[in-house]
């Protein structure tokens, strides 16, 4: 049952990313949490999603840019962790994260392929004004969205089918202390997050606010 729900979520998330809504259900933080809720690990799902969110914060879907698809990757990464039945340790987090990052790029390539299919779909038979041009455009537009939904199903199914057995096999073979895994995730997230300072803190006021935030975050750590 969880498997089907995850595939359904992957389809919705794929559709939300570009084709329909863009309500940001497709952001890794949201998609990861929802996937986590399906497999009974909402907090772990949210943490994997938040890490993928941190790693992709600066990616912008500007114009015709090609970019990784982070939403479906978050669903299948968290789904892989949950369906594998393995404990959500820092090591499992790292391997799941690495798997999600790889799938972001593969899934992004299917988005590009879908856009070429759309090109063929919307252009076919456009030479003359059809008697019901309005109906034809509507059918093809809705058809393109259905194709995107199917793409989400296929990407999520493939990611889960490959990922679950892979993680089960791989995790016992991983041979570094858990602190290395946790450290790698922390260093990666902080480095990429700090890269966004160029966008938000490129003047004196921004730098002051950033510094105030760092002080606030550090104070929170001391108070815990």
């Amino acid at each position, binding site marked *: 049952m969880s498997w089907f729900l995850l595939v359904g979520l992957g389809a919705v998330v794929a559709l939300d990313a570009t084709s329909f809504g863009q309500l940001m259900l497709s952001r890794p933080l949201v998609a990861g949490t929802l996937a986590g809720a399906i497999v009974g690990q909402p907090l772990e799902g949210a943490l994997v999603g938040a890490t993928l969110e*941190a790693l992709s914060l600066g990616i912008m879907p500007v114009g015709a840019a090609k970019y990784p698809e982070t939403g479906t990757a978050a669903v299948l990464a968290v789904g892989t962790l949950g369906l594998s039945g393995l404990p959500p340790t820092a090591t499992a987090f790292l391997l799941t994260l690495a798997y999600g990052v790889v799938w972001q790029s593969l899934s992004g390539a299917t988005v590009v392929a879908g856009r070429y299919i759309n*090109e063929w779909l919307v252009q076919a038979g456009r030479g003359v004004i059809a008697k019901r041009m309005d109906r034809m*455009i509507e059918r093809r537009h809705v058809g393109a969205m259905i194709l995107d939904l199917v793409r989400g199903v296929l990407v999520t199914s493939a990611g889960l089918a490959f990922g679950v057995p892979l993680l089960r096999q791989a995790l016992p073979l991983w041979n570094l202390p858990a602190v290395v895994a946790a450290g790698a995730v922390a260093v990666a997230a902080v480095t990429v997050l700090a890269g966004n300072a160029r966008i938000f803190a490129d003047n004196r006021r921004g730098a002051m606010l950033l510094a105030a935030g760092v002080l606030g975050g550090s104070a929170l750590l001391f108070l815990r």
Partner: protein
Amino acid sequence: MNRLPRSVVRRTFLRSFTIQGSWNYRTLQGSGFAFALMPVLRWIHRDDPQRLQESVQRHATLFNAHPYLAGVALGAVARMEMDGEDPALIERFKNALRGSLGTLGDRIVWAGWRPACALLGIAVLLITMSATTAVLVFLVIYNLGHIGLRWWGLQIGVEYGLQVGERLRRAPLGNWHEGVVGGAALLLGLVLPLAAAGGLTASRVSYWVLMLCVAGGVAGWRLGAAARPPVMVLLAVVAVAGFLLRLGQ
């Protein structure tokens, strides 16, 4: 001046959520634009099927804008069609407007509102460790801005038509963006130490990891977006190293 019925404007608004549904490398959002404008065109040309088909054909050509601000163009074009403007003028107007709407939307939404809300969601998660609260805060606040922007854009488009560019220039979007970016800087600063302390894996990290995080933070600040590819390589190297050590034993 005739007015568009509110039900027609509402249907166009709802359809604008699918403007990128058939996004492609030839017409970009073109088909989506025609799809969203269809209720307006059907209402205007309700007594002339031939003109309806011709106008649909005209609007299914190349168009691209930020999806949240495409409503500005949709509303303005709807108004111009209502006023019976020359199709060549409408086409020139669309061409002139699309670049500005793309640039403006990319700046205030993709480089401002969205990352600011995402940082807020991450901050709430790392402070409260409540996934539900974090996701609800992110979705509700983000979509208040998102849906509000879509609705406002369509409304000013319908109201101002050809003069919508002037109305956009008077809008306080620049000040709003400055505030959002300032908030994002504060939230980014807040999240950095929490992430460095192992918050994202719900585990404690040692002092040498904290030192590496500080070094990584400085490197990230210097490199900007260029920091991402080497970090992805670093993650892959650590992931693979764990298996290679096993093989070496």
